[in-house]
């Protein structure tokens, strides 16, 4: 690789940028565990937020010096927004069709960074033998798979038969070669690595499909020639999704994986491998074929959706309409800029969705408002005894007087006990007056109660000054601002 290319990857490739980021440990630990290890696809924001909230709590508790000063102070949602921003690109944020909630999904870039970081963790031993076998087997497949000479094919097939015959003879003679423990571990390690890689690759497969789709759409949108030429170009340039290398390899994998016999064979094999004593089997690999199917299904769904939309996009009418619409939108924009200082008072005419039906008799009929009768002449009253006492017995506590009492005793920006004020200005109207103090709402006064302490207030009964009464209330302080 050249200097310039590496430099540009360092700047632009999201995976590399992530590795250089300051909070890379947080990003990888959370997204790696939540999405990659658990093999999650698109997940509703609320679930991701809840998980990240827990994760932040644990991480902050572990790495922050003081609780008041956490290492990662932002809200989970803010972190997710950061990570999904275009200049980060660790998460894909989108609103799926048919769902009201925003969804998140990790990108291939994150998957790459995560898998690279996991490889940094040293392995106790690195098996090489099994990989040699795999490499040789691949070479054989390439060489014999491309040979169309029937005689050469037969030679190879016979050679394989002889090999198998020899093995059969050996077993019949009681000679059963068994893999030694190292051989088993070596192979299992390679299996585990490949199985996980495969899973990680699906994300990239999906992303490649999206790129292909985007390239096709951009081409469609900017196309000037005839539609026939466009179609020829699309198919010819292999940007046609199903026909691309990516599409065909994926389809072949998908068909292979989905056959019942294959699934069953995988189940049995995985079960047996997990039961071997020689290896410390990874529980997650026990059902890896289900994870493959799920991930493949997801990718397949994406492809289906994309190609359906692309077909529609290419549909004759839509294609013509889109170009016309774009042209008209530009015309409107140009004119709108020209009239900006003096916007017109007209707009578009648009059909109103739906048909209004207003049935006249559904509405309430006219109902004359009931006339209220007002008689201003008072009926003459006789000389009956009216209970006029009631009117005079109403007691009125003048809040202004109480406030004035406080202002007279308490200087500005000072505080006093209510009991002290009452000592200076004895209560004249009994309990009502005490309540009056508590209810003062003047802007410059504030009354506070402290339930932890008690005050006793003594006052003369307003009806009979000879009787002393006591009120028990919380400690009340009055302050002036």
């Amino acid at each position: 690789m050249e200097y310039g290319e590496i430099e540009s990857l360092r700047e632009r490739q999201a995976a590399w940028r992530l590795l250089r980021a300051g909070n890379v440990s947080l990003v990888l630990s959370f997204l790696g565990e939540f999405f990659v290890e658990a093999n999650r696809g698109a997940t509703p924001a609320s679930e991701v937020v809840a998980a990240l909230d827990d994760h932040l709590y644990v991480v902050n508790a572990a790495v922050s010096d003081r609780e008041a000063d956490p290492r990662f102070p932002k809200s989970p949602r803010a972190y997710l927004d950061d990570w999904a921003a275009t200049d980060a690109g660790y998460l894909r944020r989108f609103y799926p069709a048919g769902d009201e909630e925003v969804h998140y999904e990790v990108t291939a870039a994150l998957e790459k960074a995560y898998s690279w970081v996991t490889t940094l963790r040293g392995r106790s031993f690195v098996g090489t033998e099994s990989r040699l076998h795999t490499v040789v087997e691949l070479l054989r497949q390439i060489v014999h798979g491309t040979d169309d000479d029937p005689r050469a094919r037969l030679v190879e097939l016979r050679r394989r038969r002889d090999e198998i015959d020899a093995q059969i003879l050996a077993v019949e003679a009681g000679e059963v070669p068994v893999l030694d423990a190292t051989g088993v571990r070596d192979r299992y390690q390679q299996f585990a690595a490949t199985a996980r890689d495969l899973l990680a690759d699906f994300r990239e497969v999906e992303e490649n499909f999206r790129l292909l789709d985007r390239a096709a759409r951009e081409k469609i949108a900017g196309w000037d020639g005839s539609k026939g030429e466009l179609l020829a170009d699309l198919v010819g340039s292999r940007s046609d999704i199903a026909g691309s290398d990516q599409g065909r390899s994926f389809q072949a994998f998908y068909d292979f994986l989905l056959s019942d016999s294959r699934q069953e064979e995988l189940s049995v094999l995985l079960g047996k491998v997990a039961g071997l004593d020689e290896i410390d089997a990874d529980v997650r690999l026990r059902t890896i074929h289900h994870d493959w199917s799920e991930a493949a299904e997801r990718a397949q769904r994406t492809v289906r959706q994309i190609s359906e939309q692309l077909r529609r996009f290419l549909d004759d009418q839509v294609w013509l309409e889109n170009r016309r619409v774009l042209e008209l939108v530009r015309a409107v924009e140009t004119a709108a800029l020209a009239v900006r200082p003096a916007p017109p008072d007209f707009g578009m005419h648009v059909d109103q969705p739906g048909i209004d039906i207003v049935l006249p008799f559904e509405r309430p009929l006219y109902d004359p408002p009931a006339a209220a009768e007002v008689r201003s002449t008072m009926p003459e009253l006789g000389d009956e005894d009216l209970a006029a006492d009631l009117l005079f017995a109403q007691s009125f506590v003048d809040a202004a007087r109480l406030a004035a009492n406080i202002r007279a005793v308490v200087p500005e920006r000072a505080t006093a006990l209510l009991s002290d004020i009452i000592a200076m200005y004895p209560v004249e109207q009994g309990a009502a007056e005490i309540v009056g103090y508590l209810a003062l709402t003047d802007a410059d006064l504030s009354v506070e109660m402290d339930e932890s302490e008690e005050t006793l207030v003594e006052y003369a009964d307003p009806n009979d000054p000879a009787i002393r009464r006591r009120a028990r209330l919380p400690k009340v302080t009055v302050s002036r601002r």
Partner: protein
Amino acid sequence: MNDEHALGAAIIRLMQGVVYREHDESTWQTLQRSGAGVRDHFATIGVELVIDEIEGYAYLKSRPEIEGEDTLPRLVRRRALTYNVSLLLVLLRKRLLEFETSGTEGRLVLSREEIVELLRTFQPDSSNEARTVDQADRTIAKTVELGFLGAVRGARDQWEVRRILKAYVDAQTLADFAGKLREYAGEVADE
């Protein structure tokens, strides 16, 4: 619910507005099962039922006039929109097209700021930022009322651009508006 009842319900839903597959699964299924019956029902009063399988919506529109045939009185009302609402619809129509062109799946959701930003270029210069935003809020509210923007559950100030916009703000409508606007722009320039 028996079939007749379901059919009636579907007809009423359509008269109330656009029917979306994702919002009203049961009406959608009725339309799939007995769309022909609903279609016939509306055909007698000069209204056409449009079901878009791919976009997932169904709506009613006036049957185009056929030459030589007596036309029925118009049942689907046309509405004159204000200039601001019209402008927003045009800009949203463009955003929707760009969204499709970029190949992003799912739904187009815009925040209030994004919508204000869309409109800002076309607002008369004003030092009164608050006024511009207030006006944008009113325009958004109107567009929501018309059903071309929809609130997103659980997210304040986020609006989904409904795809039905494409059916209502079509090339014909845009062409009329562009023509009128161009004419007006000429007049303004002459003054």
